[in-house]
Protein backbone atom coordinates (compact mmCIF):
# COMPACT_ATOMS: atom_id res chain seq x y z
CA UNK A 1 0.00 0.00 0.00
CA UNK A 2 2.74 2.40 1.05
CA UNK A 3 4.54 1.45 -2.12
CA UNK A 4 1.51 2.40 -4.23
CA UNK A 5 1.11 5.73 -2.48
CA UNK A 6 4.77 6.50 -3.08
CA UNK A 7 4.53 5.64 -6.77
CA UNK A 8 1.55 7.95 -7.07
CA UNK A 9 3.48 10.66 -5.21
CA UNK A 10 6.36 10.48 -7.64
CA UNK A 11 4.10 10.98 -10.63
CA UNK A 12 2.23 13.82 -8.95
CA UNK A 13 5.36 15.56 -7.71
CA UNK A 14 6.98 15.43 -11.14
CA UNK A 15 3.81 16.74 -12.75
CA UNK A 16 3.70 19.59 -10.26
CA UNK A 17 7.14 20.73 -11.32
CA UNK A 18 6.82 24.16 -12.90
CA UNK A 19 8.95 25.82 -15.56
CA UNK A 20 12.00 27.21 -13.86
CA UNK A 21 14.10 29.49 -16.09
CA UNK A 22 17.87 29.11 -16.26
CA UNK A 23 19.40 31.96 -14.27
CA UNK A 24 22.72 33.68 -14.94
CA UNK A 25 24.12 32.54 -11.59
CA UNK A 26 23.63 28.93 -12.69
CA UNK A 27 25.89 29.47 -15.68
CA UNK A 28 28.50 30.93 -13.38
CA UNK A 29 28.08 28.04 -10.96
CA UNK A 30 28.31 25.29 -13.58
CA UNK A 31 31.13 26.72 -15.67
CA UNK A 32 32.91 27.98 -12.54
CA UNK A 33 32.92 24.44 -11.13
CA UNK A 34 34.11 22.88 -14.38
CA UNK A 35 36.77 25.58 -14.91
CA UNK A 36 38.03 25.25 -11.35
CA UNK A 37 38.01 21.49 -11.77
CA UNK A 38 40.24 21.69 -14.86
CA UNK A 39 42.68 24.18 -13.27
CA UNK A 40 42.88 22.12 -10.07
CA UNK A 41 43.37 18.96 -12.12
CA UNK A 42 46.61 20.34 -13.55
CA UNK A 43 47.83 21.55 -10.14
CA UNK A 44 46.86 18.40 -8.24
CA UNK A 45 48.37 16.06 -10.82
CA UNK A 46 51.65 17.99 -10.54
CA UNK A 47 51.56 17.93 -6.72
CA UNK A 48 50.68 14.20 -6.66
CA UNK A 49 53.45 13.12 -8.97
CA UNK A 50 56.02 15.49 -7.44
CA UNK A 51 55.41 15.11 -3.71
CA UNK A 52 53.52 11.80 -3.47
CA UNK A 53 55.23 9.45 -5.90
CA UNK A 54 53.69 6.03 -6.29
CA UNK A 55 56.75 4.04 -5.24
Amino acid sequence: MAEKIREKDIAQELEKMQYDPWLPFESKLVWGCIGLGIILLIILVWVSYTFFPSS
Partner: protein
Amino acid sequence: MAEERKAYLNEDWLAFWLAIVLFLVSLLAYKGIDPFGWIVSTKEWLKLEKAIEPVGKKFKGVSGEITKIEGNKLTLKTKDGKEQTVTVEDPTKYQVGQMYEKKGLSGFASLVLTYLFLTVILAIGAYLLGANVGRFLIGFFFIFWLSYLCWLLGHYAYFAATDPKKYNIPWSLKLTGEGGFIFALALGLIIGNFFRPFAQFLSEACRPEFYIKTAIGLMGALLGLKSAEAFGLASAIFFRGLCAIVEAYLIYWALVYFIARRYFKFSKEWAAPLAAGISICGVSAAIAAGGAIRARPVVPIMVASLVVIFAVIELIILPFLAQIFLWKEPMVAGAWMGLAVKTDGAAFASGAITDALVRAKAEAVAGIKYEDGWILMAAATTKLFIDIFISIWAFLLAYVWCAYVECAPGEKVSIKEIWRRFPKFVLAYFVGFLVILLISAPHAPKVKAVEDEVKLINKEIQKVEKQLSTVTDPALQAQLQAKITDLKNQIKAKQEAIKDSKKVVDQTKTATSGTNALRVLFFLITFFTIGVISDFRKLWAEGIGKLAVVYVVCLFGFIIWIGLLISWIFFHGVKPPIVGTGP
Protein backbone atom coordinates in the same frame (compact mmCIF):
# COMPACT_ATOMS: atom_id res chain seq x y z
CA MET B 1 1.23 -2.90 15.09
CA ALA B 2 4.93 -2.08 15.01
CA GLU B 3 6.40 -0.98 18.29
CA GLU B 4 7.49 2.69 18.20
CA ARG B 5 10.29 3.57 20.58
CA LYS B 6 12.60 6.46 21.09
CA ALA B 7 15.94 6.24 19.27
CA TYR B 8 18.96 7.11 21.39
CA LEU B 9 21.39 7.11 18.47
CA ASN B 10 21.20 7.26 14.70
CA GLU B 11 22.89 4.61 12.53
CA ASP B 12 25.87 6.86 11.89
CA TRP B 13 26.70 7.41 15.57
CA LEU B 14 25.91 3.80 16.44
CA ALA B 15 28.36 2.56 13.80
CA PHE B 16 30.95 4.94 15.26
CA TRP B 17 30.51 3.73 18.83
CA LEU B 18 30.32 0.06 17.92
CA ALA B 19 33.51 0.24 15.87
CA ILE B 20 35.30 2.26 18.57
CA VAL B 21 34.32 -0.13 21.38
CA LEU B 22 35.38 -3.19 19.38
CA PHE B 23 38.63 -1.47 18.44
CA LEU B 24 39.39 -0.55 22.07
CA VAL B 25 38.74 -4.12 23.19
CA SER B 26 41.07 -5.38 20.44
CA LEU B 27 43.89 -3.33 22.02
CA LEU B 28 43.97 -5.92 24.84
CA ALA B 29 46.28 -7.74 22.43
CA TYR B 30 49.07 -5.49 23.75
CA LYS B 31 48.50 -7.09 27.17
CA GLY B 32 48.98 -10.56 25.73
CA ILE B 33 45.24 -11.29 25.41
CA ASP B 34 43.64 -12.18 22.08
CA PRO B 35 40.13 -10.86 22.76
CA PHE B 36 38.67 -11.76 19.38
CA GLY B 37 40.76 -14.83 18.57
CA TRP B 38 37.67 -17.02 18.81
CA ILE B 39 35.88 -15.21 15.96
CA VAL B 40 35.31 -17.49 13.01
CA SER B 41 37.46 -17.35 9.91
CA THR B 42 36.80 -19.28 6.72
CA LYS B 43 39.35 -20.96 4.46
CA GLU B 44 39.15 -22.38 0.97
CA TRP B 45 38.00 -25.98 1.26
CA LEU B 46 37.35 -29.25 -0.45
CA LYS B 47 36.45 -31.05 2.76
CA LEU B 48 33.90 -29.12 4.76
CA GLU B 49 35.49 -29.95 8.14
CA LYS B 50 38.57 -27.93 7.13
CA ALA B 51 36.62 -24.85 6.10
CA ILE B 52 36.15 -23.03 9.39
CA GLU B 53 38.38 -22.33 12.34
CA PRO B 54 38.96 -19.58 14.90
CA VAL B 55 41.00 -16.65 13.62
CA GLY B 56 43.42 -16.51 16.58
CA LYS B 57 46.43 -18.86 16.75
CA LYS B 58 45.89 -19.46 20.46
CA PHE B 59 42.43 -20.83 19.79
CA LYS B 60 43.37 -23.16 16.94
CA GLY B 61 44.07 -26.83 17.56
CA VAL B 62 47.36 -28.19 16.28
CA SER B 63 48.90 -31.65 15.98
CA GLY B 64 51.98 -33.10 14.32
CA GLU B 65 55.33 -34.77 14.70
CA ILE B 66 57.98 -32.80 16.60
CA THR B 67 60.91 -32.21 14.24
CA LYS B 68 62.91 -29.65 16.22
CA ILE B 69 63.07 -28.21 19.74
CA GLU B 70 64.65 -24.78 20.15
CA GLY B 71 64.28 -23.12 23.55
CA ASN B 72 60.60 -23.39 24.34
CA LYS B 73 59.63 -23.55 20.68
CA LEU B 74 58.65 -26.82 19.04
CA THR B 75 58.69 -27.22 15.28
CA LEU B 76 56.00 -29.62 14.11
CA LYS B 77 55.35 -31.38 10.84
CA THR B 78 51.58 -31.42 10.46
CA LYS B 79 49.52 -34.06 8.66
CA ASP B 80 49.41 -32.01 5.46
CA GLY B 81 53.23 -31.81 5.43
CA LYS B 82 53.45 -28.17 6.56
CA GLU B 83 55.81 -26.92 9.26
CA GLN B 84 54.35 -25.15 12.25
CA THR B 85 55.93 -23.70 15.37
CA VAL B 86 54.31 -23.80 18.79
CA THR B 87 55.52 -22.33 22.05
CA VAL B 88 55.32 -24.53 25.16
CA GLU B 89 55.95 -23.75 28.81
CA ASP B 90 58.10 -26.80 29.58
CA PRO B 91 60.03 -28.09 26.56
CA THR B 92 61.73 -30.84 28.59
CA LYS B 93 58.51 -32.85 28.41
CA TYR B 94 58.96 -33.31 24.67
CA GLN B 95 61.35 -35.14 22.38
CA VAL B 96 62.01 -34.98 18.65
CA GLY B 97 59.97 -37.65 16.86
CA GLN B 98 57.14 -37.56 19.40
CA MET B 99 53.60 -36.60 18.38
CA TYR B 100 52.32 -33.30 19.76
CA GLU B 101 48.66 -32.41 20.01
CA LYS B 102 46.89 -29.33 21.35
CA LYS B 103 43.12 -29.25 21.28
CA GLY B 104 41.61 -25.91 20.23
CA LEU B 105 38.21 -24.40 19.74
CA SER B 106 36.34 -26.21 16.95
CA GLY B 107 35.34 -24.27 13.87
CA PHE B 108 31.66 -24.89 14.50
CA ALA B 109 31.91 -23.67 18.12
CA SER B 110 33.74 -20.58 16.88
CA LEU B 111 30.97 -19.95 14.33
CA VAL B 112 28.20 -20.31 16.91
CA LEU B 113 30.06 -18.05 19.37
CA THR B 114 30.53 -15.46 16.62
CA TYR B 115 26.81 -15.54 15.83
CA LEU B 116 25.89 -15.18 19.51
CA PHE B 117 28.34 -12.32 19.99
CA LEU B 118 27.05 -10.42 16.94
CA THR B 119 23.48 -11.08 18.03
CA VAL B 120 24.11 -9.58 21.47
CA ILE B 121 25.97 -6.45 20.31
CA LEU B 122 23.56 -5.82 17.45
CA ALA B 123 20.53 -6.35 19.70
CA ILE B 124 21.89 -3.60 21.95
CA GLY B 125 22.44 -1.53 18.81
CA ALA B 126 18.88 -2.19 17.61
CA TYR B 127 17.58 -1.06 21.01
CA LEU B 128 19.59 2.17 20.82
CA LEU B 129 18.29 2.77 17.29
CA GLY B 130 14.74 2.47 18.57
CA ALA B 131 14.11 -0.62 16.42
CA ASN B 132 11.86 -3.51 17.37
CA VAL B 133 14.49 -5.72 19.02
CA GLY B 134 12.44 -8.93 18.76
CA ARG B 135 11.87 -8.50 15.03
CA PHE B 136 15.48 -7.47 14.59
CA LEU B 137 16.74 -10.65 16.27
CA ILE B 138 14.53 -12.93 14.19
CA GLY B 139 15.55 -11.12 11.01
CA PHE B 140 19.22 -11.18 11.96
CA PHE B 141 19.09 -14.93 12.60
CA PHE B 142 18.16 -15.57 8.95
CA ILE B 143 20.44 -12.84 7.62
CA PHE B 144 23.50 -14.18 9.45
CA TRP B 145 23.04 -17.85 8.64
CA LEU B 146 21.99 -17.39 5.01
CA SER B 147 24.88 -14.95 4.45
CA TYR B 148 27.33 -17.32 6.09
CA LEU B 149 26.09 -20.20 3.95
CA CYS B 150 26.94 -18.12 0.88
CA TRP B 151 30.32 -17.25 2.36
CA LEU B 152 31.07 -20.92 2.99
CA LEU B 153 29.98 -21.85 -0.52
CA GLY B 154 32.12 -19.03 -1.91
CA HIS B 155 35.18 -20.63 -0.28
CA TYR B 156 34.59 -24.00 -1.98
CA ALA B 157 37.80 -24.68 -3.89
CA TYR B 158 35.98 -25.10 -7.23
CA PHE B 159 34.74 -21.53 -6.91
CA ALA B 160 37.54 -19.88 -4.95
CA ALA B 161 40.94 -21.44 -5.66
CA THR B 162 43.24 -19.25 -7.73
CA ASP B 163 45.49 -22.26 -8.22
CA PRO B 164 43.36 -25.41 -8.81
CA LYS B 165 46.49 -27.59 -8.79
CA LYS B 166 46.92 -26.88 -5.08
CA TYR B 167 43.73 -28.85 -4.45
CA ASN B 168 44.26 -31.41 -7.24
CA ILE B 169 41.15 -30.28 -9.02
CA PRO B 170 40.86 -29.79 -12.79
CA TRP B 171 39.26 -26.34 -12.78
CA SER B 172 38.14 -23.46 -10.63
CA LEU B 173 36.22 -20.23 -11.17
CA LYS B 174 39.14 -18.44 -9.43
CA LEU B 175 36.83 -16.02 -7.63
CA THR B 176 38.87 -16.26 -4.40
CA GLY B 177 36.94 -16.66 -1.14
CA GLU B 178 35.44 -13.21 -1.63
CA GLY B 179 33.26 -14.81 -4.31
CA GLY B 180 31.09 -15.53 -1.27
CA PHE B 181 30.16 -11.83 -1.28
CA ILE B 182 28.77 -12.25 -4.80
CA PHE B 183 26.76 -15.31 -3.77
CA ALA B 184 25.38 -13.39 -0.77
CA LEU B 185 24.37 -10.49 -3.00
CA ALA B 186 22.75 -12.86 -5.51
CA LEU B 187 20.78 -14.68 -2.80
CA GLY B 188 19.73 -11.32 -1.33
CA LEU B 189 18.53 -10.12 -4.74
CA ILE B 190 16.55 -13.33 -5.28
CA ILE B 191 14.86 -12.89 -1.90
CA GLY B 192 14.28 -9.15 -2.40
CA ASN B 193 12.69 -9.59 -5.83
CA PHE B 194 11.03 -13.01 -5.79
CA PHE B 195 10.24 -13.65 -2.11
CA ARG B 196 9.00 -10.21 -1.09
CA PRO B 197 6.99 -11.31 1.98
CA PHE B 198 10.16 -12.95 3.35
CA ALA B 199 12.19 -9.82 2.49
CA GLN B 200 9.60 -7.77 4.38
CA PHE B 201 9.87 -10.20 7.29
CA LEU B 202 13.64 -9.53 7.42
CA SER B 203 13.31 -5.77 6.96
CA GLU B 204 13.94 -4.73 10.59
CA ALA B 205 17.45 -6.20 10.41
CA CYS B 206 18.15 -5.15 6.79
CA ARG B 207 20.38 -2.16 7.51
CA PRO B 208 23.22 -2.35 4.98
CA GLU B 209 24.38 1.24 5.53
CA PHE B 210 24.78 0.60 9.26
CA TYR B 211 26.64 -2.67 8.72
CA ILE B 212 29.01 -1.18 6.16
CA LYS B 213 29.72 1.89 8.29
CA THR B 214 30.64 -0.36 11.22
CA ALA B 215 32.82 -2.45 8.90
CA ILE B 216 34.63 0.65 7.64
CA GLY B 217 35.15 1.87 11.21
CA LEU B 218 36.78 -1.49 11.97
CA MET B 219 38.87 -1.41 8.82
CA GLY B 220 40.82 1.69 9.90
CA ALA B 221 43.04 -0.28 12.28
CA LEU B 222 44.03 -2.87 9.67
CA LEU B 223 44.86 -0.19 7.13
CA GLY B 224 46.87 1.64 9.81
CA LEU B 225 49.14 -1.40 10.08
CA LYS B 226 49.41 -1.75 6.30
CA SER B 227 50.24 1.96 6.02
CA ALA B 228 52.94 1.67 8.68
CA GLU B 229 54.56 -1.08 6.60
CA ALA B 230 54.40 0.96 3.38
CA PHE B 231 53.98 4.56 4.45
CA GLY B 232 54.99 6.10 1.13
CA LEU B 233 52.41 4.10 -0.79
CA ALA B 234 49.69 4.78 1.79
CA SER B 235 50.31 8.54 1.79
CA ALA B 236 50.25 8.53 -2.03
CA ILE B 237 46.87 6.74 -1.96
CA PHE B 238 45.48 9.17 0.60
CA PHE B 239 46.60 12.29 -1.21
CA ARG B 240 45.64 11.05 -4.65
CA GLY B 241 42.28 9.87 -3.33
CA LEU B 242 41.67 13.35 -2.00
CA CYS B 243 42.64 14.90 -5.35
CA ALA B 244 40.39 12.48 -7.22
CA ILE B 245 37.32 13.38 -5.23
CA VAL B 246 37.91 17.15 -5.49
CA GLU B 247 37.89 16.66 -9.24
CA ALA B 248 34.87 14.37 -9.14
CA TYR B 249 32.82 16.82 -7.08
CA LEU B 250 33.56 19.79 -9.28
CA ILE B 251 33.12 18.11 -12.64
CA TYR B 252 30.42 15.51 -11.90
CA TRP B 253 28.03 17.74 -10.01
CA ALA B 254 28.22 20.62 -12.46
CA LEU B 255 27.67 18.40 -15.50
CA VAL B 256 24.73 16.48 -14.05
CA TYR B 257 23.11 19.69 -12.82
CA PHE B 258 23.54 21.26 -16.25
CA ILE B 259 22.07 18.25 -18.09
CA ALA B 260 19.14 17.87 -15.68
CA ARG B 261 18.28 21.57 -15.97
CA ARG B 262 18.93 22.29 -19.63
CA TYR B 263 17.96 19.07 -21.36
CA PHE B 264 15.47 17.44 -19.00
CA LYS B 265 13.94 20.72 -17.76
CA PHE B 266 14.07 19.84 -14.08
CA SER B 267 13.59 22.70 -11.64
CA LYS B 268 16.48 23.85 -9.44
CA GLU B 269 14.80 22.13 -6.50
CA TRP B 270 14.97 18.78 -8.31
CA ALA B 271 18.21 19.26 -10.21
CA ALA B 272 20.48 20.03 -7.23
CA PRO B 273 19.66 16.89 -5.14
CA LEU B 274 19.51 14.80 -8.32
CA ALA B 275 22.99 16.01 -9.33
CA ALA B 276 24.32 15.28 -5.85
CA GLY B 277 22.67 11.85 -5.74
CA ILE B 278 23.78 10.73 -9.19
CA SER B 279 27.19 12.29 -9.17
CA ILE B 280 28.52 12.25 -5.64
CA CYS B 281 27.46 9.79 -3.03
CA GLY B 282 23.94 8.70 -3.60
CA VAL B 283 21.52 8.78 -0.73
CA SER B 284 23.34 10.91 1.82
CA ALA B 285 24.48 13.44 -0.80
CA ALA B 286 20.95 13.77 -2.21
CA ILE B 287 19.56 14.34 1.27
CA ALA B 288 22.33 16.79 2.22
CA ALA B 289 21.99 18.76 -1.02
CA GLY B 290 18.19 18.72 -0.71
CA GLY B 291 18.48 20.07 2.83
CA ALA B 292 21.02 22.68 1.79
CA ILE B 293 18.78 24.21 -0.88
CA ARG B 294 15.64 23.78 1.26
CA ALA B 295 14.03 21.33 -1.16
CA ARG B 296 10.91 19.54 0.09
CA PRO B 297 11.85 16.22 1.80
CA VAL B 298 9.99 14.23 -0.87
CA VAL B 299 12.54 15.26 -3.52
CA PRO B 300 15.75 13.72 -2.06
CA ILE B 301 13.77 10.67 -0.87
CA MET B 302 12.65 9.92 -4.41
CA VAL B 303 16.13 10.46 -5.76
CA ALA B 304 17.52 8.21 -3.02
CA SER B 305 15.22 5.32 -3.90
CA LEU B 306 16.58 5.42 -7.45
CA VAL B 307 20.18 5.70 -6.28
CA VAL B 308 19.93 2.48 -4.26
CA ILE B 309 18.73 0.47 -7.26
CA PHE B 310 21.35 1.78 -9.67
CA ALA B 311 24.13 1.32 -7.10
CA VAL B 312 23.33 -2.40 -7.06
CA ILE B 313 23.44 -2.53 -10.85
CA GLU B 314 26.89 -0.89 -10.71
CA LEU B 315 27.96 -3.30 -7.97
CA ILE B 316 27.03 -6.25 -10.18
CA ILE B 317 28.73 -4.93 -13.34
CA LEU B 318 31.72 -2.69 -12.55
CA PRO B 319 33.96 -5.06 -10.52
CA PHE B 320 33.86 -7.58 -13.39
CA LEU B 321 34.67 -4.85 -15.93
CA ALA B 322 37.57 -3.83 -13.69
CA GLN B 323 38.79 -7.42 -13.56
CA ILE B 324 38.73 -7.73 -17.35
CA PHE B 325 40.23 -4.36 -18.28
CA LEU B 326 42.08 -3.03 -15.24
CA TRP B 327 43.88 -5.99 -13.69
CA LYS B 328 47.19 -4.44 -14.76
CA GLU B 329 46.25 -1.24 -12.91
CA PRO B 330 44.81 -2.52 -9.62
CA MET B 331 44.72 0.81 -7.79
CA VAL B 332 42.93 2.50 -10.72
CA ALA B 333 40.31 -0.22 -10.41
CA GLY B 334 39.92 0.38 -6.67
CA ALA B 335 39.67 4.17 -6.93
CA TRP B 336 37.21 3.78 -9.80
CA MET B 337 34.85 1.80 -7.56
CA GLY B 338 35.04 4.54 -4.93
CA LEU B 339 34.32 7.26 -7.46
CA ALA B 340 31.73 5.58 -9.66
CA VAL B 341 29.60 3.40 -7.38
CA LYS B 342 27.04 5.32 -5.33
CA THR B 343 25.96 4.58 -1.75
CA ASP B 344 28.48 3.58 0.89
CA GLY B 345 27.35 -0.02 1.00
CA ALA B 346 27.66 -0.67 -2.72
CA ALA B 347 30.90 1.32 -3.10
CA PHE B 348 32.81 -0.42 -0.31
CA ALA B 349 31.31 -3.73 -1.35
CA SER B 350 32.41 -3.27 -4.96
CA GLY B 351 35.87 -2.31 -3.67
CA ALA B 352 36.03 -5.61 -1.77
CA ILE B 353 34.96 -7.68 -4.80
CA THR B 354 37.32 -5.79 -7.09
CA ASP B 355 40.17 -6.40 -4.65
CA ALA B 356 39.53 -10.14 -4.86
CA LEU B 357 38.82 -10.36 -8.60
CA VAL B 358 41.75 -8.21 -9.74
CA ARG B 359 44.23 -10.01 -7.47
CA ALA B 360 42.95 -13.37 -8.69
CA LYS B 361 43.37 -12.36 -12.33
CA ALA B 362 46.85 -10.88 -11.77
CA GLU B 363 47.90 -14.13 -10.12
CA ALA B 364 46.30 -16.36 -12.74
CA VAL B 365 47.53 -14.45 -15.80
CA ALA B 366 50.84 -12.90 -14.74
CA GLY B 367 51.70 -14.91 -11.64
CA ILE B 368 51.79 -11.73 -9.54
CA LYS B 369 50.43 -12.02 -6.01
CA TYR B 370 49.43 -8.60 -4.74
CA GLU B 371 48.95 -8.06 -1.01
CA ASP B 372 45.24 -8.06 -0.29
CA GLY B 373 43.39 -5.02 0.99
CA TRP B 374 45.20 -2.28 -0.95
CA ILE B 375 42.69 -2.13 -3.81
CA LEU B 376 39.91 -1.96 -1.25
CA MET B 377 41.92 0.76 0.50
CA ALA B 378 41.95 2.85 -2.70
CA ALA B 379 38.16 2.42 -3.02
CA ALA B 380 37.59 3.11 0.68
CA THR B 381 39.84 6.19 0.74
CA THR B 382 38.10 7.87 -2.18
CA LYS B 383 34.69 6.97 -0.81
CA LEU B 384 35.50 8.21 2.70
CA PHE B 385 36.76 11.53 1.35
CA ILE B 386 33.59 11.77 -0.72
CA ASP B 387 31.52 11.22 2.43
CA ILE B 388 33.48 13.86 4.32
CA PHE B 389 33.15 16.33 1.46
CA ILE B 390 29.37 15.92 1.32
CA SER B 391 29.12 18.12 4.39
CA ILE B 392 31.40 20.77 2.87
CA TRP B 393 29.57 20.61 -0.46
CA ALA B 394 26.20 20.94 1.28
CA PHE B 395 27.53 24.01 3.09
CA LEU B 396 28.76 25.58 -0.17
CA LEU B 397 25.44 24.86 -1.91
CA ALA B 398 23.51 26.35 0.99
CA TYR B 399 25.70 29.46 0.77
CA VAL B 400 25.23 29.81 -3.01
CA TRP B 401 21.46 29.23 -2.77
CA CYS B 402 21.14 31.74 0.03
CA ALA B 403 23.14 34.29 -1.91
CA TYR B 404 21.61 33.82 -5.38
CA VAL B 405 18.28 31.98 -5.18
CA GLU B 406 16.34 32.57 -2.00
CA CYS B 407 17.17 33.29 1.59
CA ALA B 408 14.63 33.64 4.39
CA PRO B 409 14.79 37.00 6.17
CA GLY B 410 17.59 36.91 8.72
CA GLU B 411 18.73 33.46 7.54
CA LYS B 412 22.44 32.83 7.80
CA VAL B 413 24.35 29.82 6.60
CA SER B 414 26.27 28.52 9.60
CA ILE B 415 29.56 26.70 9.36
CA LYS B 416 28.12 24.34 12.02
CA GLU B 417 26.23 22.73 9.12
CA ILE B 418 29.49 21.08 8.13
CA TRP B 419 29.75 19.24 11.46
CA ARG B 420 26.04 18.44 11.54
CA ARG B 421 26.28 16.65 8.22
CA PHE B 422 29.73 15.19 8.83
CA PRO B 423 29.62 11.36 8.64
CA LYS B 424 30.60 10.36 12.18
CA PHE B 425 31.49 6.73 11.39
CA VAL B 426 34.46 8.10 9.46
CA LEU B 427 35.92 9.23 12.81
CA ALA B 428 36.07 5.61 14.01
CA TYR B 429 38.00 4.74 10.86
CA PHE B 430 40.51 7.54 11.46
CA VAL B 431 40.88 6.81 15.19
CA GLY B 432 41.68 3.15 14.47
CA PHE B 433 43.94 4.11 11.59
CA LEU B 434 45.93 6.73 13.50
CA VAL B 435 46.28 4.78 16.76
CA ILE B 436 47.60 1.68 14.99
CA LEU B 437 49.76 3.76 12.65
CA LEU B 438 51.36 5.58 15.60
CA ILE B 439 51.93 2.35 17.54
CA SER B 440 53.35 0.37 14.64
CA ALA B 441 55.11 3.03 12.53
CA PRO B 442 58.38 2.87 14.53
CA HIS B 443 58.43 -0.94 14.33
CA ALA B 444 56.64 -2.25 11.22
CA PRO B 445 59.09 -0.94 8.57
CA LYS B 446 62.06 -2.42 10.49
CA VAL B 447 60.34 -5.79 10.83
CA LYS B 448 59.23 -5.83 7.21
CA ALA B 449 62.73 -4.95 5.99
CA VAL B 450 64.27 -7.73 8.07
CA GLU B 451 61.61 -10.23 7.02
CA ASP B 452 62.32 -9.41 3.37
CA GLU B 453 66.05 -9.83 4.00
CA VAL B 454 65.45 -13.13 5.80
CA LYS B 455 63.40 -14.37 2.84
CA LEU B 456 66.32 -13.60 0.51
CA ILE B 457 68.83 -15.27 2.85
CA ASN B 458 66.57 -18.34 3.11
CA LYS B 459 66.50 -18.53 -0.69
CA GLU B 460 70.28 -18.32 -0.67
CA ILE B 461 70.43 -21.12 1.94
CA GLN B 462 68.20 -23.32 -0.23
CA LYS B 463 70.47 -22.67 -3.21
CA VAL B 464 73.58 -23.59 -1.24
CA GLU B 465 71.89 -26.69 0.22
CA LYS B 466 71.03 -27.81 -3.32
CA GLN B 467 74.61 -27.25 -4.35
CA LEU B 468 75.79 -29.17 -1.27
CA SER B 469 73.72 -32.20 -2.21
CA THR B 470 75.52 -32.47 -5.57
CA VAL B 471 79.07 -31.90 -4.29
CA THR B 472 81.33 -34.85 -3.37
CA ASP B 473 84.57 -33.03 -2.52
CA PRO B 474 84.81 -32.94 1.33
CA ALA B 475 86.65 -29.59 1.36
CA LEU B 476 84.00 -27.98 -0.77
CA GLN B 477 81.31 -29.63 1.34
CA ALA B 478 82.81 -28.12 4.50
CA GLN B 479 83.04 -24.73 2.78
CA LEU B 480 79.39 -24.85 1.75
CA GLN B 481 78.34 -26.09 5.19
CA ALA B 482 80.19 -23.17 6.76
CA LYS B 483 78.41 -20.82 4.40
CA ILE B 484 75.04 -22.23 5.42
CA THR B 485 75.92 -21.85 9.11
CA ASP B 486 77.05 -18.28 8.48
CA LEU B 487 73.81 -17.44 6.66
CA LYS B 488 71.73 -18.99 9.45
CA ASN B 489 73.67 -16.96 12.00
CA GLN B 490 72.96 -13.84 9.97
CA ILE B 491 69.24 -14.63 10.17
CA LYS B 492 69.45 -15.15 13.93
CA ALA B 493 71.34 -11.87 14.44
CA LYS B 494 68.86 -9.94 12.32
CA GLN B 495 65.88 -11.48 14.10
CA GLU B 496 67.45 -10.79 17.49
CA ALA B 497 67.99 -7.14 16.56
CA ILE B 498 64.28 -6.61 15.90
CA LYS B 499 62.94 -8.86 18.68
CA ASP B 500 61.11 -6.05 20.51
CA SER B 501 59.74 -4.51 17.34
CA LYS B 502 58.58 -7.93 16.17
CA LYS B 503 56.69 -8.38 19.43
CA VAL B 504 54.83 -5.08 18.90
CA VAL B 505 54.04 -5.95 15.28
CA ASP B 506 52.80 -9.42 16.26
CA GLN B 507 50.58 -7.91 18.95
CA THR B 508 49.26 -5.41 16.41
CA LYS B 509 48.53 -8.24 14.00
CA THR B 510 46.65 -10.07 16.76
CA ALA B 511 44.64 -6.92 17.50
CA THR B 512 43.78 -6.26 13.86
CA SER B 513 43.13 -9.86 12.82
CA GLY B 514 40.21 -10.18 15.23
CA THR B 515 38.57 -6.90 14.22
CA ASN B 516 39.28 -7.73 10.60
CA ALA B 517 37.44 -11.05 10.92
CA LEU B 518 34.47 -9.11 12.28
CA ARG B 519 34.86 -6.55 9.49
CA VAL B 520 34.60 -9.33 6.89
CA LEU B 521 31.38 -10.59 8.48
CA PHE B 522 29.88 -7.09 8.49
CA PHE B 523 30.83 -6.79 4.81
CA LEU B 524 29.16 -10.13 4.11
CA ILE B 525 25.93 -9.13 5.84
CA THR B 526 26.02 -5.86 3.91
CA PHE B 527 26.13 -7.68 0.58
CA PHE B 528 23.21 -9.88 1.53
CA THR B 529 21.05 -7.06 2.89
CA ILE B 530 21.79 -4.76 -0.06
CA GLY B 531 20.34 -7.51 -2.24
CA VAL B 532 17.28 -7.96 -0.01
CA ILE B 533 16.34 -4.26 -0.04
CA SER B 534 16.89 -3.82 -3.78
CA ASP B 535 13.44 -4.15 -5.27
CA PHE B 536 13.80 -3.66 -9.01
CA ARG B 537 10.06 -3.07 -9.39
CA LYS B 538 10.75 0.52 -8.37
CA LEU B 539 12.27 1.12 -11.80
CA TRP B 540 8.88 0.51 -13.37
CA ALA B 541 7.03 2.67 -10.86
CA GLU B 542 4.71 5.21 -12.41
CA GLY B 543 6.37 8.57 -12.94
CA ILE B 544 9.91 7.57 -12.08
CA GLY B 545 10.78 7.14 -15.76
CA LYS B 546 12.03 10.69 -16.30
CA LEU B 547 14.24 10.53 -13.22
CA ALA B 548 15.53 7.13 -14.27
CA VAL B 549 16.36 8.39 -17.77
CA VAL B 550 18.46 11.26 -16.38
CA TYR B 551 20.14 8.79 -14.06
CA VAL B 552 20.95 6.32 -16.84
CA VAL B 553 22.14 9.03 -19.24
CA CYS B 554 24.41 10.66 -16.67
CA LEU B 555 25.65 7.55 -14.89
CA PHE B 556 26.42 5.40 -17.90
CA GLY B 557 26.96 8.34 -20.25
CA PHE B 558 29.79 10.03 -18.42
CA ILE B 559 29.95 9.61 -14.63
CA ILE B 560 31.41 6.13 -14.80
CA TRP B 561 33.83 7.10 -17.57
CA ILE B 562 34.96 10.41 -16.06
CA GLY B 563 35.45 8.50 -12.78
CA LEU B 564 37.61 6.03 -14.68
CA LEU B 565 39.60 8.83 -16.31
CA ILE B 566 40.19 10.63 -12.99
CA SER B 567 41.16 7.34 -11.32
CA TRP B 568 43.54 6.63 -14.19
CA ILE B 569 45.13 10.10 -14.02
CA PHE B 570 45.81 9.86 -10.28
CA PHE B 571 46.40 6.15 -9.75
CA HIS B 572 47.97 4.67 -12.86
CA GLY B 573 51.32 3.15 -12.10
CA VAL B 574 50.53 2.87 -8.38
CA LYS B 575 50.75 -0.81 -7.48
CA PRO B 576 49.98 -2.68 -4.25
CA PRO B 577 52.93 -4.43 -2.56
CA ILE B 578 53.74 -7.76 -4.18
CA VAL B 579 53.79 -10.67 -1.72
CA GLY B 580 54.88 -13.37 -4.11
CA THR B 581 55.17 -14.53 -7.67
CA GLY B 582 53.56 -17.57 -9.19
CA PRO B 583 55.22 -20.56 -10.80
